[in-house]
């Protein structure tokens, strides 16, 4: 006996039963057909079809897997079904929103002059003509776009220094003192403030300081910064915290003062995170409606002065166009403009998010490899 040849088996002893690769597709097909059949009995609708098919698919795949592959693989399949299902449920409203806004917004956006004209002088007469088909849809969002940019910019100018300096105090000087703990607590509380309350605060503040009925872009900017500051504090604080203590010590050991260490070592190291946090905070407040309604009113014409006069913004433009159409008898042109404005707003937020990623990448410390 010199040779100890292993007998050639059909299947390795180390494997168990396995579902064929095409198993999920087969189950999916059967589930879709069965689902359609069941729904046909009780009255067909797409949503019900999706839900019933999903349940049938999960049950079928898990059951088949349990029969062929055993309990462990079946549990694995069940978990996979749940995870993917949760993902789809989370994604559904998002895609639905983007789709709806695109479909309804693109006609408005493609209107000539939509981005370049204001609503100044646009009356119900024009909208009635447009609805009858005897004239174009006129008017646009230029004034609202300008207002949004001005208000948000001013809000950023107010919030970033306050928020960043607060974060620096908390991380570098706070040492868990009572003051630092109080600030942390109130920042947390501020994060949860309803936006209308921020608007009312700013309105009441300017009412008391400047005079009754003060509604300007600046008041709106103050309201927005009330909402923005806690977000900036939180994100900057997290970014400053993850700067390794070794870098601070290295700087101290070179005989560098604490404030210079913070300014030249800690902040540059964290700047990418801070900048993208700020960008995300801007994206967060740019779509606020309620605080702007009570602080800046709504204008139909261009206002270049953020410190005087009512000012429009994209969210309030959408709100008024839907709620008070320019021509009450023919609201369609107004709603077309509102959808167009909504699309522009979503694009702005998307660009800000992309900008945040870009900033994070550009400012990130180079590895040099």
């Amino acid at each position, binding site marked *: 006996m010199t040779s100890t040849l292993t007998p050639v088996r059909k299947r390795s002893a180390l494997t168990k039963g396995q579902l064929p690769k095409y198993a999920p597709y087969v189950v999916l097909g059967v589930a879709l057909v069965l689902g359609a059949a069941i729904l046909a009995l009780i009255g067909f609708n797409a949503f019900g079809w999706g839900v019933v098919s999903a349940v049938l698919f999960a049950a079928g795949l898990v059951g088949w897997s349990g029969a062929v592959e055993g309990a462990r693989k079946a549990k694995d399949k069940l978990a996979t079904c749940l995870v993917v299902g949760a993902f789809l449920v989370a994604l559904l409203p998002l895609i639905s929103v983007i789709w709806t806004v695109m479909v309804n917004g693109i006609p408005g956006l493609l209107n000539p002059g939509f981005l370049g004209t204001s609503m100044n002088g646009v009356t119900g007469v024009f909208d009635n003509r447009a609805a009858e088909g005897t004239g174009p849809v006129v008017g646009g969002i230029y004034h609202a776009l300008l207002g949004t940019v001005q208000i948000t910019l001013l809000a950023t100018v107010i919030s970033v220094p306050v928020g960043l300096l607060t974060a620096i105090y908390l991380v570098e000087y706070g040492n868990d003192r009572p003051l630092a703990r109080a600030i942390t607590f109130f920042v947390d509380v501020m994060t949860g403030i309803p936006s209308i309350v921020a608007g009312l605060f700013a309105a009441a503040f300017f009412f008391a300081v400047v005079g009754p009925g003060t509604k300007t872009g600046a008041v709106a900017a103050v309201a927005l910064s009330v909402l923005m500051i806690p977000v900036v504090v939180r994100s900057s604080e997290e970014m400053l915290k993850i700067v390794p203590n*070794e870098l601070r*010590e*290295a700087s101290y050991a070179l*005989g560098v003062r604490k404030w210079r260490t913070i300014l030249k070592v800690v902040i540059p190291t964290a700047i990418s995170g801070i900048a993208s946090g700020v960008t995300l905070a801007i994206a967060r407040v740019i779509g606020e409606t309620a605080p702007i309604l009570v602080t800046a009113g709504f204008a139909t014409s261009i206002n270049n002065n953020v410190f005087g006069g009512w000012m429009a913004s994209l969210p309030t433009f959408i709100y008024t166009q839907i709620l008070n159409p320019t021509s009450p008898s023919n609201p369609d042109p107004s709603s077309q403009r509102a959808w167009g404005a909504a699309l522009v707003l979503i694009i702005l937020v998307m660009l800000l998010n992309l900008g945040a990623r870009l900033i994070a990448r550009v400012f990130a410390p180079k*590895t*040099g490899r």
Partner: protein
Amino acid sequence: MSKRIDVKDLNVYYGNFLAVEDVSINIEAKSVTAFIGPSGCGKSTFLRTLNRMHEVLPGARVEGEVLLDGDNLYGPGVDPVTVRSQIGMVFQRPNPFPTMSIRDNVLAGVKLNNQKISKGEADALVERSLRGANLWNEVKDRLEKPGSGLSGGQQQRLCIARAIAVEPQVILMDEPCSALDPISTLAVEDLINELKDQYTVVIVTHNMQQAARVSDKTAFFNIAGTGKPGKLIEFAETSTIFNNPSQKATEDYVSGRFG
């Protein structure tokens, strides 16, 4: 360009916890002094008190005197920043500034303090410091590249270059080789031998061979048990500590018969 350090009856605290008790030691100028001892015995803590880095941690404080050529570091009105610009430090893990190039890392002590320096002087300082740290030949063609792209051993020598660029009187090293491979360790040890011509060097190490190789004098620290303060057991010429120590604990530790 080097000063001696004399420590008198130093107690080091973290809050109310006494971490190092009653240390008195005289460190000669232009010599290498090694601190050895088991983990947690307070060598690093004591080292950090020598340039007032200890108090950076919240609640940390010190009682006693540390004299740098006769001037008490802990005297009233002494600015810790002045102390640290005279007594440099190299840390256990290489920590070059990730946002800066190799050149800027070397110049960090100058630039972060906003001192004006001409480009020619800066170039000379960079070259002198990097040569002093035995790193010049390896990085001279990529001075504008980030310091974090270097290998661990190169990063540590970059940190040493950064420390000597501010021209301190004393250089403290807290286990500078514990994160390095043997070749990088050798490079740093060679460097320490050269540094002692100009600087007073104090080094904490876990590696007794390293202490024997690089130091003139060795201090052995020990701890009686957890929660007890660390103490200086014996301080003598390195050859005495390793060959003929006067204390039983020292002999046990250096011969590996500890505990």
